[in-house]
Structure formats: structure tokens, C-alpha cells
């Protein structure tokens, strides 16, 4: 047997080629490493048989992260009693020695700023909605609210990292990486995990984000997200250089492959075979990605649904529409970041812009998924890295105020993917300061999402530095059944 056919037969080339694993392989990399006994340094191994015992509802995830921390009491966590507390001090019995950021820890007083917005009840659960989110209110029956999210982090960097990776320090794999690692890709020509950074229309208080938020940590690098960009090439270096049309690229690739085949025959390195395959894959991406990002064929109705902003590249509405197209084509996990929610001051000046950016777009996305029969298998998540304080940071008036970071409670919502529609979980006190019922810690949230995808968070582990590492870390995490349909 010659060496090339040996390599092909043994499938040794498979060991490294898991960027786009085969559609039939629902376990992605996990199963491959086990089969091939790959124990290279740093390369994790996992107990594949144990890790997805549950029937998965969510085959795909679209995670909309609101960078900066939306003010829950101005959006969803209605606190009418606060109207009587205007400019009164937050009682110590409520604050309970809570650590504050150094932006307000020096403040002489903590005067309460009741929400200036009107609220009304919608949907089967009677959920309260701010007047700023009329479209969300319209689809109250689709949403599953968690009003009792909580975290320990009080500043953006550690808090976003915590929300995305289950740990405040950098270096751990993010949720999307875990998902693509576990689920694999359903489309050979597209990555399993895509990230997009939407451009907010108001940029007064944009916060830093970082490529580390979508990295794979100790998982193999190919489970990191591939960023889809809103200007230039949608994927870095996707387009041929000027003056190189497709047929010329094809001709050069043929040249490369012929010579690589000779090298393979002569040297017998399985990696050479992998490279030949990857160059072919790159070529396929060059045609499939432009088709994907070309919205010209979307109907007028689509733009009516998502709003006119969806036509403009880079807007939040545009990225949500693109997210639907990605999921439609088999991408497992789409992460979207929308910035400028960090309202330390001027809530009145910014919050309406923020809500306008996302309100109709979220509605459009969820209705669109529903109309296409995709909502049951697509989990949509919306939320920030923490909440905001009921007391005002800086100047307070009836019409305007600021709010500092608040980790003890905040509101997120989910839709589809096996979540319980039209439901509300968790309660906070009259100050939207402490949770009084059914807390959902970030770990619980992660455990629940994994379960929706079919994974037992206790068993979905990889071996790294001698430990069975998992998204939910070492402390207790609870799968919250009440959030599930």
C-alpha cells in the first residue's frame, strides 16, 4: 500500500481537521479525539458518551449581548413604589454593605431615581414593559423572562468575561465555543460559531469589548468564533486580491493542490492531505459567504418586520437578520454584541436610542424564526453583563438621572429553543436591588442553556491541566426547569 492511500484510509488526517466537521457527526471534535486517542499537550479529551444525554431542543443559538448593562428598572423590572422615594436615600437595610464601584463609592448620598418611563402589562404572564419597547410588549407571549439574574462582578471587563465564559478571569472558553465544540457544524462551508459587533446609533458611552470574549480558551482554537465583519470582507481575507477573478483563483488552487499532492506522495505527512482539503474548503467559502451576506433577495416583508434599519450594514437590525440567515444555513451559534448601554449619566438621552436600535429588530427576528418554523429549535437570548442601580449616579432630576453598575439583580429574556414562552421567573425587592425569589446566577443560566442544547453541564467537561473543566465551574449550578417548556 502506498503511503498516501494509507493516510487516506486511516483517516489520520482527521485528527486535526475539525474546523468544519462532517454534518453527520453531531459530536464534533469531542468524538474524534476520543476515537483517535489524541492526547497532544493542551488538547482536551472528553467523555463523549456522557455529555449529551438529553434530547436537545436548541439546535442553534442567537445570543444578543447588550454591552454595558441595561437598566432593568427602566425596561422590565417595574417598581411603582419608587415614585414615592424620589431623591430619598437608599436605605442601608437594602444596600447591606454591598461593594460599589469606585465611581459611586465616594458619593455622599445614594438618592433614589424612580424610572421616568411609563409601564404597562402584556401577554399571558402579565409581564411589565416600558413604553420604550412597544415591539417587545407585542410579543410578550413569546418571551421567557428572568428578572433575578445575578453576578458577583461589578465592572465591565470581568462581568462580560464572566457572562460569556463562566469565569471573571480571561482565558476560559466562551459559551459559543462550548456549543460549537459539542454540537459541531451542520454546514461544511461555514464556521459553527460566528460573532458580529453591531454599531449602535448612539455612541456616547461605548464600552470596550475584546476578541478574548469569543476565544476558545483551552478548547482547540477552531472553536473560537469567526468574526463576521460589517464592513470590508465579511470574513477576514475572504476576497481575492484585486485583479484575481474566481477562475484565476481556481487555476492557482489547482496548481497548489497538484504540487501538494506530490509532496504528500513523497513525504507522507497526513497534514499535507488536510491542507489540500482545507484549501478546497476555503474556495467553497469564497462563494458561500457572499451568497449568505447578500440581502438583496430578502423580501420587502422581511424589512417591514425587522425595520428599515435592517437594510443598513452594521446596524443591530441588520446583524439580527444576518443571524437568521446564518442559522438557516446551519451555523450553530451566533453571538451579537450591541454596545452603549452603560448609562452612568443621561439615561433620558440614551436609553430611547438604545431601545429603538433593538426593539423592532428583536421582534422581527423572533417572528421571522417563528414564521419559518425555526423558533422551536433556535434559542434567542437577550441581556447584559449586569444591571444598574436604583439610586442615581451624579445629578438627579425627575426627567434625567444616571445609574451605576449593579450586580445583585438584572433582567434577561430568552425565546424559543425549548424555553417556556410567555413566562416570568424571579422577583426582586421594591428597589430592584435584591432578589427576593428564585435567583438565577450566571452559572444557573449557563447550566440551563447547556441543558436546552442537550448537554448535562456536570458531564460536559474537557480535561485540561488535569482537571475536568466545565463551563459552570466548580461551584454549584442549578438547571432551572421552570424556564423550560
Amino acid at each position, binding site marked *: 500500500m502506498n*503511503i498516501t492511500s*494509507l493516510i487516506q484510509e486511516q483517516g*489520520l488526517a482527521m485528527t*486535526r*481537521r475539525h*474546523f468544519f466537521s462532517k454534518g453527520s457527526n453531531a459530536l464534533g471534535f469531542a468524538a474524534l479525539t476520543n476515537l483517535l486517542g489524541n492526547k497532544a*499537550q*493542551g488538547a482536551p479529551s472528553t467523555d463523549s458518551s456522557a455529555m449529551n444525554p438529553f434530547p436537545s431542543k436548541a439546535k442553534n443559538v442567537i445570543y444578543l449581548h447588550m454591552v454595558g448593562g441595561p437598566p432593568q428598572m427602566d425596561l422590565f423590572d417595574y417598581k411603582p413604589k419608587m415614585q414615592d422615594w424620589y431623591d430619598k436615600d437608599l436605605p442601608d437595610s437594602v444596600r447591606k454593605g454591598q461593594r460599589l*464601584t469606585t465611581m459611586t463609592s465616594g458619593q455622599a448620598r445614594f438618592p433614589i431615581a424612580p424610572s421616568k418611563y411609563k409601564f404597562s402589562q402584556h401577554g399571558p404572564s402579565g409581564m411589565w414593559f416600558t413604553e420604550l419597547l412597544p415591539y417587545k410588549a407585542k410579543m410578550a407571549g413569546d418571551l421567557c423572562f428572568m428578572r433575578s439574574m445575578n453576578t458577583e462582578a461589578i*465592572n*465591565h*471587563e470581568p462581568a462580560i468575561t464572566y457572562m460569556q465564559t463562566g469565569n471573571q*478571569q480571561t*482565558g476560559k472558553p466562551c459559551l459559543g465555543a462550548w456549543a460549537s465544540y459539542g454540537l459541531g457544524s451542520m454546514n461544511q462551508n461555514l464556521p459553527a460559531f460566528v460573532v458580529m*459587533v453591531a454599531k449602535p446609533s448612539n455612541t456616547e458611552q*461605548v464600552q*470596550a469589548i*475584546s*476578541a478574548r470574549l469569543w*476565544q476558545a480558551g483551552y478548547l482547540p482554537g*477552531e472553536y473560537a468564533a469567526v468574526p463576521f*465583519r460589517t*464592513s470590508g*470582507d465579511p*470574513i*477576514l*481575507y*475572504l*476576497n*481575492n*486580491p*484585486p*485583479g*484575481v477573478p474566481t*477562475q*484565476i483563483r481556481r*487555476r*492557482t488552487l489547482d*496548481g497548489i493542490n497538484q*504540487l*501538494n499532492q*506530490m509532496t*504528500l506522495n*513523497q*513525504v*507522507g*505527512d*497526513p*497534514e499535507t492531505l488536510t*491542507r*489540500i482539503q*482545507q484549501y478546497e*474548503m*476555503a474556495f467553497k467559502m*469564497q462563494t458561500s459567504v457572499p451568497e449568505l451576506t447578500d440581502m438583496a433577495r430578502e423580501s420587502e416583508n422581511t424589512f417591514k418586520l425587522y425595520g428599515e434599519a435592517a437594510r443598513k450594514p452594521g446596524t443591530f437590525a441588520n446583524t439580527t437578520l444576518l443571524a437568521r440567515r446564518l442559522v438557516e444555513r446551519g451555523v450553530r451559534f451566533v453571538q451579537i454584541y450591541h454596545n452603549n448601554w452603560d448609562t452612568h449619566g443621561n439615561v433620558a438621552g440614551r436609553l430611547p436610542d438604545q431601545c429603538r436600535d433593538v426593539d423592532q429588530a428583536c421582534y422581527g427576528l423572533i417572528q421571522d424564526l417563528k414564521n419559518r418554523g425555526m423558533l422551536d429549535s433556535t434559542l434567542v437570548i437577550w441581556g447584559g453583563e449586569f444591571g444598574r442601580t436604583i439610586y442615581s449616579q451624579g445629578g438627579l432630576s425627575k426627567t434625567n438621572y444616571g445609574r451605576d453598575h449593579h450586580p445583585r439583580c438584572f433582567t434577561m429574556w430568552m425565546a424559543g429553543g425549548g424555553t417556556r414562552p410567555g413566562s416570568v421567573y424571579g422577583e426582586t425587592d421594591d428597589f430592584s436591588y435584591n432578589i427576593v425569589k428564585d435567583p438565577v446566577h450566571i452559572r444557573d443560566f449557563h447550566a440551563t442553556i447547556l441543558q436546552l442544547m442537550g448537554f448535562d453541564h456536570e*458531564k460536559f467537561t474537557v480535561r485540561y*491541566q*488535569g*482537571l475536568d473543566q466545565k463551563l459552570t465551574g*466548580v461551584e454549584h449550578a442549578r438547571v432551572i426547569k421552570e424556564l423550560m417548556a
Partner: protein
Amino acid sequence: MLLKNISSLTMLVLVATVVQGAEKLKYNRDIRPILSENCFACHGPDSAARKADLRLDRREDAIKFGAIVAGSAEKSPIIERIYSSEKGKVMPPPKAHKVLTAIQKEKLKQWVLEGAEYELHWSFIAAKKPTMPQNKNASWAKNPIDRFILAELEKKGLAPAPEADRRTLARRLSLDLNGLPPEPSVVEAFVADTRPDAYEKLVDQFLQSSSWGEHRGRIWLDAARYADSHGIHFDNFREMWSYRDWVINAFNNNMPFGQFTIEQLAGDLLPNATLEQKIASGFNRCNITTNEGGAISEEYLVLYTRDRTETVAQVWLGLTAGCAVCHDHKFDPFSTKDFYSMAAFFNNTTQGAMDGNIKDTPPIIAVPNLNDKARWEEVTKALAIVRTQVENRKKEAKGDYDKWLATASKDTFSNRTPTEGLVVSATLKEGKGDKLEFIINKEKKMVDAPEIAWVKGQTEEKVLQVAKAGSVTIPEIGDFEKDQAFSFGAWVLTPRQAFGPLFARMDDTAKHRGWDLWFENGKVGAHIVSSWPENAIKVMSKATFNQNVWTHVFVTYNGSGKADGVKIYVNGIAQATEALSNNLTGSIRTNVPFRLGSRHSKESLQKATFHDLKIYNRSLKPEEVAALGPVEKLVQILAKEQAKRTPEENNQLFDWWLSNMDAKSKDLTTQLGNLDREEKELKGKGTIAHIMVEKPEPSMAYILNRGDYDKRKDKVAAATPEVLHSMPKDTQRNRLGFSQWLLMPENPLTYRVTVNRFWQEVFGNGLVRSSGDFGITGDTPSHPELLDYLALEFREQGGDIKKFFKLMVTSATYMQSAVSTPEKLEKDPANRLLSRGSRYRMDAEMIRDYALASSGILTKKIGGPSVKPYQPEGVWEAVAMIGSNTRDYKPDTGENLYRKSMYTFWKRSAPPASMEILNAPNRETCTVKRERTNTPLQALVTLNDPQFVEAARFLAERSLKESGGTPDSQLDFITMRILSRKLNPSEKALVLSERSDLLEYYAKNMEEAKKLQTFGAHKSDPKLNLAELSAWTMTINSLMNLDEVLCR
């Protein structure tokens, strides 16, 4: 299915072997992996996680507990429990999700029968000189390395691969030692060299090249987590490259490894530390830092110390100490106490928690240009001398001063107030009504001031207090442009420390255009703004003042558009300042009026009180500023009776006399000023270094509960981990003592870990594959005796790094051809036994440098500030905060586009895009081994990145100009540069056919050819045939993407 069958078959065979027990089981080889995987999590070193108070990692504990009775399987509960089928009894318990296999159970049983003997983990036992193995094939070995390698191959019945041909060897050596492909002339000379030591000569040649230090250094910088930005939040620029250049020089000077270690970990603590040694201490300043508003300092100081500790543990000890941050290490005998005791060594620096978003976060030192170094040293010495003279003069001058004081009068000070360029002056102490008198361009003007109050001043009966924001507005004041010099200030007081403008001409509703004088919690500052924050200057005093005391504040600006053109004076004394923004290019003129106590909007400093406001249309000199407010005060002091003057007031008078009336002091001050200026100039031309500075107190740290900064437990002194050899009594308990301890012959890890990493650098993988984890959960060495031999050899040769690499690359093992065989793929699939030459895809930087070097466009320049080559637009912008100075990526021009990739500006939150795709780390934390994946995104980089296409164009051009006229000779020229060889006839046929297809296309599509030849910075020679040039460009683009090129 096939694989499954094989593995169950193997299992049966193994069980049989174990039961028959031909060879006695070894704890490290056979037993520890089973216990570590299945038992230690609950019955291991971690005291917090331990169940039933049973430890199985230590023999005496396991026996004392009664879990193991050595020699008796029946009496040992551990064996009974693992074989139990009862749910509540079986170990590991079902909820642990661990299941022992039949073989594992048998092994444990047999081991207990054999006496349950334990061994210390191999890497904690000091290396022993191994006996040289005997080889059946006695002629193959070129040096001791080969005898160890061959012995293992022979055990498996494998023969080494034949020696690679000379071209392959030249290319491999050049890549491994210099990180670049060899010049064709070097390859040809080597091929033709018939001397017996031709190969060795070539090795020496590469070791002498300055690329050696760059290549080794580039790899070291991953471990050192070197980058050009702070990492967290704003992720602003950090001027750190002097450390990077130190690393390159250290390798090029072949600094012994011991010195290399000590200077980086403790260069600042060496007696009479040199500038270079202090720069070296920057190793511990490469950690990521934050300046996020709201961050709690203690939390970040703890994180920084943790990072330094983990980095040092990983790089020198090969230990993943990070686990012990929260709990005793579950597998390695490394307790939380060990971790924090070791952390104490790195917890004693003066570095603050907030990086200030500045490029030079203290502690830093100035580093002059190489050319200025001699003069720099002279100036530094002269400065010290003159400063002493100034002090001496102060002591001597008392007599002269007293004489003067006896005769001094109010008139002595009169007429010293500068009047040239005085465009606005207002005493603001008239004390009545709601009109203020301003003298504007020498004309008196009464200004309406509806909401003011008159309050008592420091000596004045009444001074102005602005009661309501925006009530005093004067449109004709302060309309300056950014390139105009101007100065402004007044006596001021505010009731409490606060943020806010004292006075301003600024439109804060339109991106803050204009300028202001500003208080920020006791700091004095000024903004000069075109559009905030991206186009503006902001300068703040470093010192804090009490705003509740009358203070004369004054700002001068020289119209340069630069932050260093702004000086801040408090009570006449120039202040050390910080430039928080320094990028002013646009106009600062605005139509809004000048306002007292506020900006254009309602934002105000409450109850700001003023007198003696002055504005000049030029930049006042320091002595002129000193003559403004302070002189007035001196007059008041002088008016007091001598006995009633406070010591501070006496000093003020004396200082004024020294600097204005005493000729000797004035002369010295001039000298000092000149030297200061020269020093600043030299500083300005040079760079800085981030260094370590030790606090005076002993190194201490707190054990933290679960690693939380606010959950302190016991305080611990600096100490090395208990499982390792102890620190000698007379060694200092600081970083210096620690680094000496690392290098002691008793240390079982440092040298093993280091030689293993070096091995990885040329063979692609270490003898221990987990090069960052030599602990119990790490891999075991493929050739343990060889590892020990190399560690001892390296240490005994004085840590001579070049010599060590020479040893590796002159081995027959290294020189093998990479060609595999079916037999080797079966028996040694991952080449752990080195049955053939190693072959692997190059690192990201090498791939780019290869393209630049082989085309000849590479800039060969060592060191200096980092550069910005091509990068797709928006990569930085997508993640950066507005106002971050690493938000807009502006590519450089000229030679900086073609520097080696190690000089590319490394922004941590968005590393160089093409390199990140090729597995370059983000440099946030220490990386001792990169991943090496093979993905389509990587193919897109090397096919389409303009950098690669431009390199191809450049080489195409050269081939047409330099290689004679035929396609055949042109192709030879090209492949000699790209592959260090000519193609064989069948390869040539393929490539030439590709070229002619491409030529046909471009000849018909000249527009496309033009597009291909005109993008990027390099302009193609217009005399060349465009179609031919384009055909070659794309042919070279193909060749540069060959597996043979991408792999070393």
C-alpha cells in the same frame, strides 16, 4: 468499528500481561495515572475537597488510614471497594462519572500485592546523569542525543530515516536558528562545500546572525506575554519595546541562561543595577493591566501578582500553579499556602493597580538612544553635581539673605508683573454690585454679573464668588486658535474637592471645543480641545491640592498642539503633569463666550471664588508666572512683622530671594535648567522601560479564600514550594533570592523545563509534550534519560544557549529526512520516537517573514518602536472604546510595512489579524506552546492578504529583471528563493503550464492585470510587461502557498 475492535482486543492482551505480571509495576508509570485520574480529586492533596479524610496520594496516609494493607489485596479496602458492585460502596462513586476499567482494577490489585510502593513524581526528583545506552547500529549516532533516540527506535524495531539532503538541511537550519529562509547564495555555498565540517560551519554562521536573537526572542516573548497595549478596557498603548529589544540582545550576546533568568526576574535588585538590568526586570511588567473607571485597586493588585506568579511558575518550573490560587492543587503537591508564599515574592512592587491609560505607567526609567548613551551618562552625573551645588548654596547664602532682608521693602517686588501680551486682567475684588470690571486689551469694560456674591478673600476684604453657573459671560475673551500661544490663571478657592471648570471658553454641547481651566478632586488641569476625546489635549497635575485654600493656578500653552507644550503652575511652581490626551490637530475656536465658573452648558463648579484673573496672548516663562500671584503674596508676607511670619512664609521669601536676587543661585539655576532641558531632550529622543521597583518592607502576601481578594486568611512570608528543595538560609527572601533558588543544582525542574522548551523549538514538540505542565497531570517524557542528560549538559555548560542549540541541530536525529514510511506511520504515528525528521507548519510570524524574505522585500532592521503593517480596516475599531488610543489602526508607510513580524504592534484585545488566524496567542497570559491548527481561514490569509500578494509581485518583478529571459530560468530563480531548490521536471511542467494559463488570461484582460499590479504601497516597474508580471505574481502566490513552503 475497526478501531473499537482493536481497542477491545488490546485490552484483553493487556489484562493478561498484567495478571501474569512479568515485570513489577512502577508507581509513576502504571499506578499514579489511574489514581490521579480517578481518585485524587477526592482523596488527594486538596484538603478542602478531601472526602472521608482519606489521602491516597501519600503511602503513609493511605496505610495509616487502613485503606491499603501492603501485600494483601483481601485486607485492603481500596481493592474491595473498586471491585464492589454495590451502589453505595463502589469506588469511584457513580456520581463522580469515573469508571475504572478491568485492566486498571487488576493493576491496582497487583500493585497492592507487590507492596504498594510509591514514588515521588518523576519531575520532582533531581535529574541524574544517565548511563549512555548501547545501540545495535553503532555508526549512526553523531552525538549522545542520537544514542538515546536510537535505543528507543531499536526497541520498536524501527530504523532512523536517512539524512536529509543539503538543501533541506540548509533551509531547516536557517528556519530553526534564524526564523527566515536561507539566502540562495548560502544554500549554494553549502551544497558546494566539501569540507568535512561544512555543516557545522553553516550552523555557526546561522548562530552568529543577528536574526538568531530575533528568532529566539520572538518565541520567548510568548512566554513573557509581551505586547504593546495594556490589555484591559481602554487597552491603550504601552511603550514596552525596550524590554523586547533587551531580549533580542540577550540572545544575540549569548547571555548565559542563569544571568538571563536573574536579570529578568530581579535585575532591579542586583547591586549597582545597570540600565540594561533594570530594563530586563520588565519581564514582570508585561502583565495585562486595567484603568477601568470603577475598578477596585486591591482586586487588580491581587490579579497582577497572581499573573506574575503563574507566569514564573509555568516558564521556569513547568508548573500550572494557577489551580492553587483557589484550592490546594488537586494532583500536584502544591498547596494554596505554597502558591501565596511564592506569590509574596512578586507582591512587593511599587506598581499601582491602575495603568492610568498612559504609555508609561510607573515605575519606569528613561532609556536613551544608543547613540546618546555617553552624553546621557554625562548629563546625569552633571545634574547630580549641580543639584548638590544648589543645596550647598542654600546653606551658604543665609548671611547674604539676611543682609538683603534687612533692607527689603515692598518696592523690591514692584513692577515685576509681566505686562507684555496681557490681554485680560480683572482684579475681581471691587466688592460691590453686580458689575465687574475687566481690562480687555487695555480698555476698561464693565460686565454684567447678575448672580454673584461678594465674600471675604484671603486678605482682600471682598472677592467674587460665582453663585450660579453661567452668570458671568464675556464673548470677547479667550478666542484663541490651537497654534496660538496663550496663558491664563487666577487665585481660586472652592468650598470642597470637586470636578469642574474654573473658567472656560468651551462648548461642551459640541464635542467640548475650546479650552478650560479645570479642577479634578484637587488636581489642576487644562483641556484644549477641537473635538473630545479624539482630537484634544488634556493635561493634569500629578499632585493633589487642597481646593479649600486660596491657590494661585496658572496654565501656559505654547501653541505647539502637543501636551508637553502645556505647563501647569500652582503657587508659581511648575508642576509635574500627566498627559491624558495628546492628539490635537483641529481648530479649537468656538463661538460660545468665555464663562467664569462653568462651561457653555450648566455644568459648573459650585461657589468658585476668584480674584486676579489674568490672560496673556503668549506663553509666560516660569519666572514670569512666579512673579504673578506669588509676588503678591510675598508683599503681604513682607508687610508682616518678622516675628509673626510662619516658617513656611520665611521659606517662601528665601526661595524667592535665591531665584531672583542671588547671582550665584541664579547662575546655578541656569545651569540646572540647561542640563534639565538637555536631559529632557535626550529622554524625548529615547524611550522608556517599565521596570520593577521593590518596596522596602519584606515580601508578604495573604492566603485568599478561593482566590477572592477581599477574603484574606493568613498572612504568609515569601517562600518556595515545600515539595521542592529549600532556599538556603543566607539567601535573600526576595525576587533575587528566588531566581538564585531556581538555578540551584538541586532544582529538579528549571533546567529540564528549559531544555524541553528548546527541544520543542526545533523538533516541534518537547520530549515532554506538555511543555507547560511537568506536574502529575502533565505528559511523561518520551525519553526520560535523554531529558536528564540534556538538562545536566545545559547546566554544566554554564547555560550556554547557542552551544545547546548546536548540540541539538548537529545530532543525526535532527538531520534526518522527514520522509515517512507506512511502517513508521503505524508504529510511530505522531513521531514521538523521532523515527524521521520533524515537519510542522511554521508559526504565524515565520510564515509572513518567509514571504517577505524570500521575495527580498523584508526590512532588515533590529529593534525600535513597534510598527503597523497592512491590516484590514476595522479590526481594532470593532472592539476598542471610543477614546482608546489603539482604536484607529493607521498602517505605516515605507520600510515599516516590511519589518519582521515580531515588530508588529501587538494590541491585546485585537492581536494582529492575520497572525491570530495562524494561532498566534493574544499575549494576555504566558504561552509556552502554541496551538498548530490547519484551517481554511489560514489558507485565505496566505492566498489573499495584501502582504503576501505584494511579496509575490515583488519577487515576480525581480525574476523578470534578474534571471535572464526564459520562463525556465525565471522559475529557477523563484524557486531557489522560495524553496531553496530547483523544481524537478514534472513539477516544473505543472508550474509552467499554470503560468502560461495565467499569462493567456492576463494578456487578454489587461485591466485585471493593472488592478493586480497597482494595489498596495509598492509600485511595480512600469517598464515590465504587465501580463507577464501578473502571470508570475499569481504563480508565485501559488508557490508561496505550498505545503512545502508553509512547513519547516
